[in-house]
């Protein structure tokens, strides 16, 4: 099974989310970056599928050249090949991101993919549409919110996809080739091993430069949400606080 996983490099802020002076981005001078959690699960799932059914895992990330860090992390997890779609430093709107991914997939078209995985939405911008736009453009079926993937059918040419909804679980059965947008909880991603990391560090990434046209949604500025919470009321220290805690629970009608 040839699997492509599209991942995004996202900042990993702590309790505060500092902004740049021009309010165009998160100020990441003092922050680390990570693969979006949904996409990390997508990489894990792809590696497991290929371990079980054979084939290769390709990871693709569009963004500035620094996305190489996240591609190498995915390689260390067990992906076979990394594709860096260099779209420059500025954040792309979702139509432009989709165009960049489509362009790269078409460039790689020598070996068509059986399965293309996306995260359901990116952890930072959260546009909820890039995977669907790419699948649509490529004529692939896609279902979002996926938390379970099983290879199905005698010929192994179908996938059984599960997703959580408010009332329970919905099941879909889609023919390959297909796309799916997955969510964290699909699996528990592995930590890369030391040999995996060493191999990933030396791996050659395929770079595809691309300058997509802007779409119809234009970011003007980012803002911190208004927070007018008052300081917490400290009920006490240690076990001695228990009576005060239960007073509050009673007041709130919780007991």
């Amino acid at each position: 099974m040839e699997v492509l996983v599209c991942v995004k490099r996202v900042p990993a802020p702590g309790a505060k989310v500092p902004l740049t002076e021009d309010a165009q981005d998160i100020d990441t001078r003092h922050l680390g970056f990570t693969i979006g959690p949904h996409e990390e699960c997508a990489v894990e799932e792809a590696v497991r599928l290929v371990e079980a059914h054979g084939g290769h895992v390709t990871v693709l990330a569009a963004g500035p050249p620094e996305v190489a860090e996240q591609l190498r992390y995915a390689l260390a997890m067990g992906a076979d090949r990394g594709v860096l779609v260099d779209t420059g430093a500025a954040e792309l709107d979702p139509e432009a991101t989709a165009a960049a991914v489509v362009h790269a997939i078409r460039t790689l078209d020598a070996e068509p993919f059986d399965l293309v995985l996306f995260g359901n939405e990116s952890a930072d911008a959260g546009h909820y549409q890039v995977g669907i736009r790419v699948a649509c453009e490529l004529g692939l079926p896609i279902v979002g919110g996926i938390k379970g993937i099983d290879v199905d059918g005698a010929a192994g040419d179908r996938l059984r996809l599960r997703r959580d909804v408010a009332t329970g679980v919905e099941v879909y059965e889609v023919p390959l080739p297909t796309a799916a947008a997955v969510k964290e909880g699909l699996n528990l991603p592995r930590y890369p091993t030391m040999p995996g990391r060493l191999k990933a560090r030396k791996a050659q990434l395929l770079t595809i430069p691309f300058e997509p046209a802007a779409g119809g949604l234009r970011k003007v500025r980012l803002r911190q949400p208004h927070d007018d919470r008052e300081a917490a009321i400290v009920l006490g220290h240690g076990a001695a606080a228990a009576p005060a805690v239960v007073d509050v629970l009673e007041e709130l009608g919780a007991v």
Partner: protein
Amino acid sequence: MLLTVVDEQPGSLDTLGMARTIGTPVAAVAFGTAADGAKLADELVKHGVGTLHLISHELLTDYAPEAFGEALAQLIARLRPEGVIATGDDRGAEVMAQAAARARLPLATQCVSVTGGDPWQLTRIRGGGMLLEDAELTAATKLITVAPGAAGAAEISEVRAVDECVVEAFTPELAPELARTRVVARTTRGDGVSLATAEVVVSGGRGVGSAAGYAVLEELAGLLGGAVGCSRVATNNGWRPHSDQVGLTGTKISPKLYIACGISGATQHWVGCMDAAAILAVNTDPEAPMVTRATYAVIGDVHDVLPAVVAEIRARAGPRR
């Protein structure tokens, strides 16, 4: 004309209020049978909506994201509305993204406010509420989804009922292959208290220390009729299943009371619990962001504080509890 996507879900008609802040007239669009349409039309009359575009097709009798999106894209091509507004729940977001992709139109998701004109000026949430983004949306037909919870907040000022809501039937042309992404089976969750809907959530993070350490959280949740939640550290350590995780990539909850035990309050966790009516933080660190942003705090070790709270509740309930 603006189109608002509606269904029978409670709160679905809230988006009408948001639509009216953008412009008029506002018409509704829904998927379903003639009987569904008639029922919805009765409701829409009270909300001052005079037209319901009812999309019906045999491929649409059960949820199918591609078929729903294609059908909506075809209706957009037919009516050429100024904009289409839908609820940003999982399904609403998926259908709108499908429609946007097929109609080759931009889509702004997770919007909390919109001002009409050309372009539309809007504010959307990013990172589950970590940041706000002011943006401009330029398109022949502007597509937006409303962040869950934001529509209900919009002022619904003096909606005048109309005499009649006319149902305009629309039958899209759908290729049979679109049935490939239709729901084929469903399982229904049991009745127990669920994290998403519990009124009290007792949640634990790294400070709980181990999987076994959650026993006292379970006990407290049981006494309060609540559910147990956790942070991503607990999930990643294998202490709790991901279905317990609160936050950006877990579940976003709004209980009456959130008890955060040994959780530091990283933004990705905070955005999942910040809509709780009250937050009680239990933490050894008085400077932890969860402690400073909570309503109430106890400074101390989870495993000292919680057993004492459980004992106090039992003592007040009397000897038989």
